[in-house]
């Protein structure tokens, strides 16, 4: 074929290519977003849009945009009414009366009633729908619906934190009529909720598009359209905010936060949240001796870890609770004291010249700095005479090992507790029968188990404070740091910081 047959000359080809390249460069991807829309970069893709299936802390804010929880929390974590406008827990903690708002609509316009609540919390479990919610409420024996706005939950055992749980993981109300109509699988792909935003489109591993629901019962969002870009790679999120392709990005490496905070047009924040980084401890093997456990704890310079890995923003902890939450113990300090650590270790017969060999498990990339913390602690321990061999594990492996009581002496772990309640901190982390606890000794564990049945709030909190001090003093757990969440966003975006790390654009606005 000759060049002239199709009319394309070399010159015209070059010109067309250049024009095409320019056109490709022009689309609006690099332009600023409109004031009623927001582009967020998110590090985790929801595995499902059926919000009761998984207790995954990283996706709760997305669920809260689409669905309602029975009750919710203020930024300071105080529990406040939501779809449930009033509640009453009986003295024995086994019956809970709930009263619902009568103006809550699903995204298809139908009314949310107590029947939907019963379906979500009870009927789905009875139908065999597997969910983490069913597992949490395994003691629920029935929900009696008295009217469209009233029902009573009946439990076989007291659940003192039942109301806190209704603000927590997997606790979202789903529409009975819609799930029954389309089936759970379809619902998990194309859900409708009663939250402030409707799901418009979703492309797995790429993006979620949400649009404000104009009949939402609560405050109407001023940002009408949300696009959530799934960006798992931290450097891609940094590039996205720098290039203007995203308006808001979370989980940015600390060093980048400090750098981006100086860039014109961007705001960077480091916010301590209700997430605890700790070492979970076995009560046997090399750690059976309390002297060894306490020596290991005294040898850890938590302030140095914070400075090196979190820019000094992560608060060193002495108990498994974060400052400002009910179980936190003001004034109690477990000090960094390498000299005392060596003395305690010597009592157990070990020293740098005769080191103790232990195993340590750590994640790598599950929470910021995880593996670096493990390596730093191993170095600190080496100085006093403890040699730790670090094994990197994945989260499913952690549960598998813990269920089989096969975790090593120490496991670096991060624990999110959006409620701030001490039951979801020390309660779950030291309950010897639960798979979140490596500590299987019944002495402290027994006290924890008793607290699971204490309905009186003040008595329960007092009990947890005492257990928290005892657990640290006896080396049942080594609390390390209050973790931080990092954000970078465009100037002009007004966000609301929740102490538990929720990011809810329904309450945000552009100035």
């Amino acid at each position, binding site marked *: 074929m000759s060049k002239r047959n199709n009319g394309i000359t070399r010159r015209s080809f070059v010109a067309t290519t250049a024009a095409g390249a320019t056109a490709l460069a022009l689309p609006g*991807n690099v332009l600023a977003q409109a004031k009623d829309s927001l582009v967020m970069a998110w590090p985790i893709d929801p595995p499902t849009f059926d919000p009761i299936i998984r207790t995954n802390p990283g996706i709760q804010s997305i669920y809260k945009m689409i669905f309602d929880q029975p009750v919710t929390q203020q930024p300071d974590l105080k529990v406040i009414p939501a779809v449930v406008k009033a509640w009453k827990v009986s003295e024995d903690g086994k019956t809970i009366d709930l009263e619902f708002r009568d103006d809550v609509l699903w995204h298809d316009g139908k009314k949310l009633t107590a029947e939907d609540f019963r379906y979500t919390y009870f009927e789905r479990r009875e139908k065999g729908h597997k969910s983490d919610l069913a597992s*949490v409420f395994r003691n629920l024996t029935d929900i009696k619906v008295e009217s469209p706005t009233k029902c009573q939950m009946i439990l076989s055992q007291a659940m003192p934190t039942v109301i806190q749980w209704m603000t927590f993981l997997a606790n979202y109300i789903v529409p009975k009529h819609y799930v029954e109509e389309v089936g759970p699988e379809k619902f998990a792909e194309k859900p409708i909720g009663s939250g402030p935003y409707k799901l418009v489109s979703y492309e797995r*591993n790429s993006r979620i598009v949400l649009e404000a629901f104009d009949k939402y019962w609560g405050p109407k969002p001023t940002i009408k359209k949300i696009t959530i870009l799934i960006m798992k790679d931290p450097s891609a999120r940094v590039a996205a905010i720098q290039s203007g392709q995203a308006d808001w990005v979370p989980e940015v490496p600390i060093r980048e936060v400090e750098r981006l905070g100086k860039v014109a047009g961007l705001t960077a924040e480091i916010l301590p949240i209700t997430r605890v980084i700790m070492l979970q401890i076995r009560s046997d093997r090399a750690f059976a001796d309390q002297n060894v456990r306490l020596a290991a704890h005294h040898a850890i310079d938590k302030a140095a870890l914070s400075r090196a890995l979190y820019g000094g923003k992560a608060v060193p902890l002495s108990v498994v609770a974060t400052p400002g939450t009910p179980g936190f113990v003001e004034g109690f300090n477990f000090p960094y004291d390498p000299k005392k650590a060596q003395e305690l270790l010597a009592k157990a017969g070990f020293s740098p010249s005769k080191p103790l060999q232990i195993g340590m498990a750590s994640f790598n990339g599950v929470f910021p700095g995880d593996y670096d913390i493990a390596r730093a602690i191993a170095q600190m321990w080496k100085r006093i005479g403890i040699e730790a061999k670090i094994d990197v594990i*994945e989260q499913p492996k952690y549960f598998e090992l813990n269920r089989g009581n096969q975790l090593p002496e120490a496991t670096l772990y991060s624990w999110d507790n959006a409620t701030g309640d001490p039951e979801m901190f020390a309660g779950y982390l030291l309950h010897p029968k639960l798979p979140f606890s490596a500590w299987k000794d019944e002495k402290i564990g027994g006290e924890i188990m008793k607290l699971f049945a204490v309905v009186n709030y003040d008595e329960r909190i007092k009990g947890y404070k005492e257990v928290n001090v005892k657990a640290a003093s006896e080396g049942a757990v080594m609390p390390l740091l209050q973790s931080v969440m990092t954000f970078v966003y465009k100037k002009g975006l007004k966000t609301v910081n929740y102490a538990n790390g929720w990011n809810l654009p329904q309450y945000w606005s552009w100035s």
Partner: protein
Amino acid sequence: MSGGVLGVALRRIGVSLPLVFLVSVLVFVVLRLIPADPVAMSVPPNATRAEIEALRAEMGLTLPIHEQFWIWFAKAAGADFGKSIAFAQPVSRLIGQALPATIELVVVAAVFATIIGLAGGLLMYRVAGGRGEAASDLASTLIMSIPEFLWAIFFILLFGVALNILPFTGRLDAGITVGRITGFLLVDTLIQGRFGAFLNALSHLLLPSMSLALGTAPLLMRVLRSSLMEVGNEDYMMMARLRGFSERRVLVHHAFKNAFLPTLNLMGVQFSFLFGGTLLVEVIYSYPGLGSLMVQAVANTDLPVIQGVALVYAVAVLLINLGVDLAALMLNPKLRIAK
């Protein structure tokens, strides 16, 4: 397609089927050997021992491994790869959603790799023996020595952040939505007559596909140059020159045609590698294809998804090689005669 080519094609497909079976056995056995319990991901953290064992039985994990394999293989033959543990969705649906994105990416990358590889090869041949030879050698070595993921990061920093002229996340801009027809965005946008969205989708493909292409192109360049040098001294080349044809015509019409076949065979192998390269590149560009799905499945120990995607990768590689073999047969009559 001539009868000879068709016969060879059928023979190749016949050979490929046992290969697919062997790959599926390998994938299944290897995944069963890794120290990960798929049940651990399927149950809530506070599940009881009885609940775990019940689920293990329900998932068929208590059966002997050969029985597990035959059950899985029989279903996989019908494109039923089971249900994802993490997503609670049929694996075939997840693959069906992600596969078009990856194919689109690989095809565009292959086009770039071909253009750069062939043009570069011709250029390297032209400058061979001259002052440009060392520079072209250095450039091809440099490009070849940088892995795809580093190109990806470099392109994001250069074109996405510093110059800020190209998008580097997903398949479309935040403000654009395109209805799904085939899953191939370039096709769907054209079917719907949305030329602006087509350009936007193409602009989103540029950086990831170039990152992949640069891993493949240098080898094509080098093989083409070597082949051109080999045929450069053949009698027919001398005859062409004696007939007074220009060097360009001799190169393109005589040398290139004969030197292209070894390059074509290499393209088959290299384009298979493009699929493998999507794993990291898709994650870096937040591109929703099979690579991203695989990485997420591995992180979740989602064995049904890992098995399904691995098998799809294997079949894709076999199909690419089959396609290249057929292309070689059609281009080279000598191969048909030999068969």
